[in-house]
C-alpha cells in the first residue's frame, strides 16, 4: 500500500440544527481513485467543501500526509496541493489554454528590457507541455477554450491542476454534462492522474463511471458513511442498496 495522502477522521459539519455530515472517516492514498457516491443531500458536497477549505468542519480532523491541516480558504488548500475541479469548470471561455492555466498568476517579462508585458510564450509553452502530459495536443495555443469540446475543456481544467502540482484532485461530477465519447476521455484522464501518483476523489452519480475508474467507493447516506467497498469486491446492486438504504 502506498503512502496515505489524505485522511479524514470523524469529520462532522452542521449548519445550525442541520447535521450535514456526522462522524465521517475516510482515506485517500497516492495513486488511488476514491469514488464518493450517495443520493442528493447525502453530504458528498459538504464533505469535499470541508476538505477543499470552503467550509470549516464543526468537528473532527483532516490530515494531509499525516499532518493535521486547517484551511481558512480554498486558496490555502490549493497551496497545499488540493485542487477542486468544479462541474462548471471554472474556465474563462474567452482566454487561451495557457491564460486559463495561469489565470491570477500570470508570468510577466520585460519587452525592450523595461516594459512589463504578459509572457504569452511562456504560458503557451507551459500549456503545451502540460496538456501533452494528458495526451492532449493542440496546434493553435492562442485559441480561446470556447472552441474546444466539453471533454477537452475538462482536460484544460485538469491540466491547470496538474501544472500547479496538485497532489489531490477533487472532481465534482466531471462527466455529468458530457456525451459518451467525452466521458471516456475524462475517465482516461483520471487513469493518467492515477498513474502519475496523484490521489483523486471522484464524485459521480454514474455507477458505470465509478466502476470504470475507482479503486474504492465510499457511500454516504444522510450525512453518515453507509459503507465502504473495494471496487473489485462489490457490485452495482450492492452499491445501490447502500445508497438507498435497507
Amino acid at each position, binding site marked *: 500500500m502506498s503512502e496515505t495522502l489524505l485522511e479524514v477522521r470523524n469529520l462532522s459539519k452542521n449548519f445550525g440544527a442541520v447535521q450535514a455530515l456526522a462522524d465521517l472517516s475516510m482515506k485517500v492514498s497516492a495513486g488511488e481513485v476514491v469514488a464518493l457516491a450517495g443520493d442528493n443531500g447525502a453530504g458528498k458536497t459538504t464533505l469535499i467543501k470541508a476538505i477543499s477549505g470552503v467550509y470549516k468542519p464543526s468537528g473532527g480532523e483532516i490530515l494531509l500526509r499525516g499532518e493535521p491541516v486547517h484551511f481558512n480558504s480554498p486558496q490555502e488548500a490549493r497551496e497545499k496541493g488540493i485542487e477542486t475541479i468544479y462541474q462548471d469548470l*471554472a474556465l474563462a471561455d474567452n482566454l487561451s489554454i495557457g491564460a486559463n492555466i495561469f489565470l491570477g498568476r500570470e508570468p510577466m517579462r520585460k519587452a525592450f528590457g523595461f516594459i512589463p*508585458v504578459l509572457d504569452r510564450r511562456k504560458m503557451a509553452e507551459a500549456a503545451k507541455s502540460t496538456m501533452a502530459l494528458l495526451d492532449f495536443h493542440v*496546434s493553435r495555443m492562442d*485559441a480561446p477554450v*470556447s472552441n474546444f*469540446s466539453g471533454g477537452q475543456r475538462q*482536460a484544460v481544467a485538469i491540466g491547470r491542476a496538474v501544472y500547479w502540482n496538485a497532489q489531490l484532485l477533487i472532481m465534482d461530477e466531471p462527466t455529468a454534462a458530457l456525451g459518451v465519447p467525452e466521458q*471516456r476521455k475524462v475517465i482516461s484522464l483520471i487513469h493518467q492522474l492515477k498513474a502519475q501518483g496523484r490521489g483523486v476523489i471522484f464524485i459521480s452519480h454514474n455507477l458505470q463511471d465509478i466502476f470504470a475508474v475507482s479503486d474504492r467507493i465510499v457511500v454516504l447516506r444522510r450525512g453518515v458513511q453507509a459503507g465502504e467497498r473495494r471496487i473489485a469486491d462489490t457490485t452495482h446492486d450492492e452499491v445501490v442498496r447502500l445508497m438507498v438504504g435497507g
Partner: protein
Amino acid sequence: MAQPQADHADVKLTLLQHIANLRAWLFLAFLIVGFELWSYLDFGGTFVFNPYNVQSIAIYAVVPLLIATGQTYVIISGGIDLSMGFIMGLAAVVAAHVINWAGPIMGLPMAVLLGLLVSVLVAGIPGLVNGLLISRLRVPPFIGTLGMFGVARGVAFLLAGGTTVPVKNEFFSALGNGKLWNIPYIVIIAAVFVLLMNYLLSQTRFGQHNYAIGANEQAARRAGIDIRGHILKLYILSGMCAGLAGFIYAARFSAGAAQAGEPLLLDSVAAVVIGGASLFGGSGTILGTVAGALVIAVIQYGLVFINVKPFWQFISVGVVIIISVLIDQAQRQFGGGRQSE
C-alpha cells in the same frame, strides 16, 4: 483499463469569425468608398483625398474616442458606465474654472497643467463611487452608473452656474486647436493615450483579468483574482477617461459646458459595440473601438459633407449598430463558439 487516446484538437477560424473580428474596419472601408463615390458622382469632388476632411474627421473623433476607450474596458468586464457623458461635462467645467482661477497666479501653461490634473482627479471621484457601489454594495452597473449620471449632471450644472464657462488662456486654446507638422495636438494626445490603453488591456494582468471577469466572474474569483479591487479600479479608470475627454473638449472650444458629453455617451457605447465588443462581456479590443469611433465620425461628417439632412446621421449610426450586433450573434451561433454548451 481504458487506453488513453491521444486528442488532437485543431482550431480554425471560420470565414465568418474573420469577418466578425474585422467588421469595424470593413464598415469603415465601405463607408469611405461610398462617400468617395458619392462625392465624385454628385459634384466631381473627392472625400477622402482631401486632407482637410481627414483632419476634421480625426478632430471630430477624438473626444468620443477617449470616452469609448474607457467604456471598452467596462463593457469587456461585463458592465456599462452610463455616467461617462456627464462626468466629461463635469470635468470640462472644472477644467475651465481651475484654469481661469490659476492663470493669473501661476502663469498660463502651469494653469493648464493644474487644470488637467484637477479635472482628471475630480472625474475619478464619481468613478470611485460607481466602483464602490458596484463592487461592495452589489448594485448592478446599469443602475449604479445611471444614478451617477444624474448626480454628475446636477453637480456639473451647479458648478457651471447653468451656463457655459468660457476660458481665457491662449496656451489652452493653442493646445486645443494647434498643430504639429499639420497634425492637431489633440489627435496626437488621443493617439498616445489610446496606445497606452491598448497596452494596459492587451499586455498586463489588469487587462487579462478584465477579460476573465467579463467571461466568467466565478472562474476569476476561484483563480484568486481580487474582483472587488479590480472593479473599483475599473470604474475609476473609466471616470478618468471621461475626465481627460472633458479637458480636451474644454481646450478645443475654450469653454466648459456641463452638457458637452450628453450625446457622446451613447456614441461611445456604439463605438465599442461596432468595434466588436459584446455587451455580454468578455470580448472587445481597443483597436476595434478606434475603428468603431472612426465609423461613427465618418458617418456624421460624411453625411454633412455630401449635404444630406443631418437627421440621416441618427438613422445610419443606428443601422450600423444593429448590423454589427447581428454579425456578432451570427458568429456566436455558427462560428464554432460553444458558449452555450
